[in-house]
């Protein structure tokens, strides 16, 4: 038994890839970094608050006609819904960045009952430049910063 444990420890120490395979039954999510220089917010903020950004942006867009691309669902897709080879990934494909991560977290988003999950051909994602004015988008970021 001890010998087996030692072998396992060795395997775990051998390399991150081997460790991932051995340690997790569920494959880790894959999110392609996208074509833009950087995301619209730091990774930690995106992991925790992307749904609030989308929720806020959705109301601003539908009701007030504010169509800034920065925190829109379409901008997420235009950057991330590609595979490593640069080919568009369908929402039905487990490699799709939304599907992959939400499966891992056991959370089901209902965006794609209505929204297309694929990128718009030829439309690049918008980089993480600061919001143009103090409308909506920036408010979310400030709100989340304050709460932390």
């Amino acid at each position, binding site marked *: 038994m001890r010998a087996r444990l030692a072998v396992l420890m060795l395997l775990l120490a051998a390399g991150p890839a081997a460790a991932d395979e051995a340690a997790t039954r569920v494959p880790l999510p894959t999110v392609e970094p996208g074509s833009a220089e950087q995301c619209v917010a730091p990774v930690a903020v995106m992991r925790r608050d992307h749904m609030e950004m989308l929720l806020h942006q*959705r109301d*601003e867009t*539908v*009701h*007030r*006609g*504010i*169509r*800034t*691309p920065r925190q829109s669902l*379409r901008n997420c*897709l235009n950057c991330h819904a590609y595979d490593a080879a640069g080919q568009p990934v369908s929402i039905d494909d487990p490699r799709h960045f939304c599907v992959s991560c939400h499966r891992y977290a056991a959370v089901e988003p209902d965006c794609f*009952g*209505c*929204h*297309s999950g*694929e990128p*718009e051909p030829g439309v690049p994602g918008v980089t993480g430049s600061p*919001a*143009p*004015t103090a*409308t909506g*988008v920036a408010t979310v970021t400030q709100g989340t910063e304050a709460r932390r």
Partner: protein
Amino acid sequence: MSEQPIDRYRRRLLGGAVAAGTVALAPGVFLHRLAEAKPADEPVTSRVRWGLLVDATRCADCSVCVDACREEHGWDGHGRPRTDAQWIRKLDVRDRSTGRHVSLPMMCQHCAEPPCVDVCPTGASFRRADGIVLVDKHICIGCRYCMMACPYKARSFVHESLSDQKPWSPRGKGTVESCTLCVHRVDTGREPACVEACGRDGNGALTFGDLNDPNSAIHRAVATYPTTRVRDDLGLGVGVRYRGL
């Protein structure tokens, strides 16, 4: 502080409108373009009232507008006319006594006082500040009260799961939908798909623009010719007008 960008927008809007108004080919015939698109980060305002003028004297027995709408929003049906979505349809109206025949498109009339908004229990049906009546499908529960309330039969219910929606036109099972006046195009300074297609492939029977702008083609046409608002007796203040009914 927030006034500044709006004022800037208004100045640009008025400037663009004056430029558009000066291009007149003949009485009633205008080469028009929409006023400059509003900046993406500014909300719509009630200074604009989007409207549509249907010239039934020019509208023929074609379906270019319907086809363009179907293509733009992807509401191609399942071959079940009773339940398939239909954002715009062609009507043939015939006067029995004289035999006069008129063909016209019918769609959401974008009321100023929309009955669909009155009856919606969740607030999903709403009227934007610029007069476009929409369904917020995020909060629509699919009760279909609005479909019953609409005097124009303009709304449809999505009965079946969908895939391959257009990125600019989300549609989903269990929600009600109707003509959005191509809000995604209008917000970026373009005309609705039906208007564009009618001008290109049809008979140029549709005019889109800002009814509040005295220099817009639609305002001039409405001020020049007698036009009809369908079921005006209901006092809904619709944004779609018909000429030659």
